[in-house]
């Protein structure tokens, strides 16, 4: 551990927003306004809020797909000035390519991201082995050579998360990745993400509507307001790790969910 050498806090922040606002077109109203937040390396944060509160906008800013209209976004100590390469993304729709098998889909980032891209020709077997191991870890062993339409919704989402992680990004962005799944599948995938993150930590930004999901998975939950999105509350979740699904029926868990729900309630009434 490096605790004795811990640098100043600001450098420890892996992702940092300083008074960030974004309007998609110049002159149009802000999608998010004056958002400041900081995420430690390997921290798991969740953004919750009503529909259209700009949660996905935050994702676009972190990944550098959109530059902020005001303020600064830093990732890994550097200001974001274009698409980030150390990022993996997964969305509500799995977006798997229907002409590729599970394995080929998972391998897609290796064909694009350096240094894998230029070494793919010589090290394909090695990279495919990594992909197979990851596919096994998410419980898709035996489905490597199946096409996406041969997988259930939950399995497609598992493959999608594999694809987001195969190039070992330091930051994983999840935009309502479990939104379209049934309740039981969703809980299974929570555990899958929990295990992946616990075994080999990385920084996670999870955008979700589901407060139970946020409390179960995240270290810190941010509540955002209606448009223009602002951060209304920040809540650290002090539930011990590793968390078991049983924790979702405990009283402290219910208290967290309840507290966050009240914030959302206020937003909806205002």
């Amino acid at each position, binding site marked *: 551990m490096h605790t004795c050498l811990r640098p100043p806090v600001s450098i420890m922040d892996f992702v940092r927003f300083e008074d960030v606002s974004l309007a998609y077109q110049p002159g149009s109203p802000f999608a998010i306004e004056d958002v400041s937040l900081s995420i430690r390396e390997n921290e798991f944060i969740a953004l919750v809020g009503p529909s259209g509160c700009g949660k996905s906008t935050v994702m676009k800013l972190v990944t550098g797909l959109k530059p902020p209209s005001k303020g600064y976004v830093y990732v890994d100590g550097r200001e974001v000035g274009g*698409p980030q390469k150390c990022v993996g*993304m997964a969305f509500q729709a799995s977006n798997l*390519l229907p*002409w590729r098998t599970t394995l080929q889909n998972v391998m897609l980032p290796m*064909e*694009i991201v350096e240094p894998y891209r230029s070494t793919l020709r010589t090290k394909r077997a090695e990279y495919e082995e990594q992909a197979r191991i990851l596919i096994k870890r998410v419980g898709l062993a035996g489905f490597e050579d199946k096409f996406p339409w041969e997988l259930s919704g939950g399995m497609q989402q598992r493959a999608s998360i594999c694809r987001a992680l195969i*190039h070992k990004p330091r930051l994983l962005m999840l935009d309502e990745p479990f939104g379209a799944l049934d309740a039981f599948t969703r809980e299974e995938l929570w555990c899958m993400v929990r295990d992946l993150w616990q075994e080999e930590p990385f920084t996670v930004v999870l955008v979700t509507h589901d407060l139970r999901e946020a409390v179960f998975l995240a270290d810190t939950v941010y509540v955002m307001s209606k448009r223009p999105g602002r951060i209304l509350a920040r809540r650290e979740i002090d539930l011990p790790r590793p968390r078991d699904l049983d924790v979702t029926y405990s009283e402290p868990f219910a208290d967290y969910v309840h507290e966050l729900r009240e914030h959302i309630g206020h937003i909806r009434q205002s």
Partner: protein
Amino acid sequence: MLSQKTLIRLAPWLVVALFGLLWEGIVVAFNVPEFLFPSVSAVWHSTLDHWDPIMMHATQTFLTTLAGFAIAVVFGLLLGAAVGSSPIIYKALYPLLVGFNSIPKVAFVPVLVVWFGIGTIPAILTAFLISFFPVVVNVATGLATLEPEMEDVLRSLGASRLDILKKVGLPRAMPYFFASLKVAITLAFVGSVISETVASNLGIGYLMMAASSSMDMALVFAGLIVIGIMGVVMYELFALIERKLTGWAHRNPNGAM
């Protein structure tokens, strides 16, 4: 009893046979003179009588059509890729393309004749001009309907526009592309035959013009049927290639290929 499957396979042949019988029956029943509307059997005899010239002209038409079609595919693919991957090019070129496509290509043949003389070249160019449009539209549609999330995933990995086009855009546009090939090949036959009827001394179009001027209606119909057969064969060929290469887009809902 025939099984459902064999019945489906035989159905097109049965329909063709039925159509032929109906045709023959009408001509015989109403005693239609051959110089107006020849019976199937008369067309068949005429085909056998003129087998060598028909084959010669059919080969000419076939090769001409393929040449025009090949140019249309290359041109359509390139233009479709440009139109589909850039909203500016899309906006800029669409009115011109639609306008051009609205011009009857037969009206264009005289222009081509002035430029290139009569014969094979105007026929190739007419086949090209009439058949590239569906290729452009379909390839452009396939590219333009790429999911924005998919683009975000790739861009966040640092993919260039060319990467996105190669890895996702073009493979995704392939079913659209092959669907357009089936339309384009049949249109290409229309184009080359039109040009041959107006300005050529070779090809099925020319054969039909020559035959009709000597009131040999049986030979005219033989020409029509030969064009039809070539069209069906090429259509089926591209349908087969389509199924082989883009089976992922034509799967059954229950999952089996």
